């Protein structure tokens, strides 16, 4: 009798520990997603952090790593934006579901590729089974600046239908480059024609 009670308690302990882990992650998610610090506040925090570190007699390794970590990540981000010509101007994320091996997040992003702006909304489903993590996009919604172009709107609706976010970005690059080139060419000819007319 006692032995089976032990098992019951042990099972409950295991399930409670899992619940607590999930709740803690949920709490951190919401905390992260519902706060915002401006660049000035970040800079102030860095300054305050540094003076805290200097105040401490023995430099705490892990704490000074924070500043270095932030700088390294920002360098990576800045490089990628310059290299790919894709800039994300705003990104808001909201964790909608969080289970042991399944997370759903809602993303809202605005950005531009070269000079073309876009706005995206989608849900990102991450499932963990054994060693693999699978990522699936659902409810994709795309708004593009040059929406009046028939080809663009056809492309956008087909991409939305299949949740094909990757193809959207891969095509966006080449389209934006072409669009930029065309814009500059037209501008050039506009200037030239104005000059000609004024002769």
């Amino acid at each position: 009798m006692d032995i089976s009670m032990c098992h019951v308690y042990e099972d409950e302990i295991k399930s409670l520990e899992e619940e607590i882990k999930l709740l803690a992650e949920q709490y951190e998610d919401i905390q992260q997603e519902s706060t915002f610090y401006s660049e000035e506040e970040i800079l102030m925090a860095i300054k305050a952090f540094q003076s805290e570190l200097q105040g401490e007699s023995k430099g705490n390794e892990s704490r000074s790593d924070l500043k270095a970590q932030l700088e390294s990540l920002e360098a990576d981000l800045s490089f990628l934006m310059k290299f790919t010509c894709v800039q994300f101007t705003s990104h808001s994320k909201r964790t909608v579901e969080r289970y042991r091996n399944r997370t759903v997040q809602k993303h809202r992003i605005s950005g531009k590729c070269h000079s073309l702006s876009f706005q995206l909304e989608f849900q990102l489903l991450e499932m963990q089974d054994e060693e693999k993590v699978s990522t699936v996009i659902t409810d994709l919604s795309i708004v593009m600046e040059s929406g009046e172009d028939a080809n663009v709107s056809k492309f956008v609706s087909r991409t939305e239908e299949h949740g094909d976010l990757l193809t959207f970005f891969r095509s966006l690059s080449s389209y934006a480059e072409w669009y930029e080139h065309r814009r500059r060419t037209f501008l050039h000819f506009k200037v030239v024609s104005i000059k000609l007319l004024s002769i």
Partner: protein
Amino acid sequence: GVFSHLEMLEAQAHEADRKQEEKKQQEEKLTSLKERVEELRIQRDRLQAKVDLQKKRQSGKEGVVSGAAELSAGAVLEWKIRSVKGMLQLFYLTGISGKLTKQGVCFSISTAYESTYLDSYHLDLLTKPAVRIHRHSVPVFIPLEQIAKRYLQTDIRRFLSILSDHLNAYAGRKYQADQLQERFSDQLEGSLQRNSLCNLLAFNYKVPSGGKTFPFSARLIYRDICCSLPTEVMVSCTVKAPAHLEETAAAHSELFRHMALHKAFCTFSSTEEKVD
């Protein structure tokens, strides 16, 4: 006699002691487990209340609250770190992501089939004295050296874009073949044969007609390795069959040329239902 009787009594006493000790240990274990459960329940309820309060606050103000002086400087930095990491994850979704290294850059090319992201591949590039590949995880049947020879020195963006085309087309073909094996194994006869690049597929499948099933065989060749649709398809019925099945084979051939393999098989099942 007496001696063995004494031994027996001693053994009995030992046994009784042992059993009592065991019982005591079990009771202690039970009590401590019970206490632990209580502890965890309280912790869980407290956390749940915190999360519920957060959610109420979050739904009350749609949007974000300015951080103000709520958190310590270190916590603010941690917030910012998580925020930047989140943006870096977005680049993973765009197909090209990367990380600066001491000697250059490590790029990561992601692949996807429609809404499902598949494997990603890494390229560790050195930039001095010239751009060259240090290490990579690109499979050997992708013509990496060829592509690098043509574009790596002159136009890295173009190099990555073309490599991405190859990798995504391969990933797309592999995905279709995997899906076919996973979801339509009951319609397949035998195993699906493919090469490593997944641009040669051969399989046998069953086609129902008039209450009977006929064995069909299909061969798909993808000569354009940057494309996930085949350039040549051969479908035939492997036994002598009624003439109308030749039309079916031709129709399937056309279908496989223009539609993803697993989606084509989806249409088979649905038309079958309609006929029944």
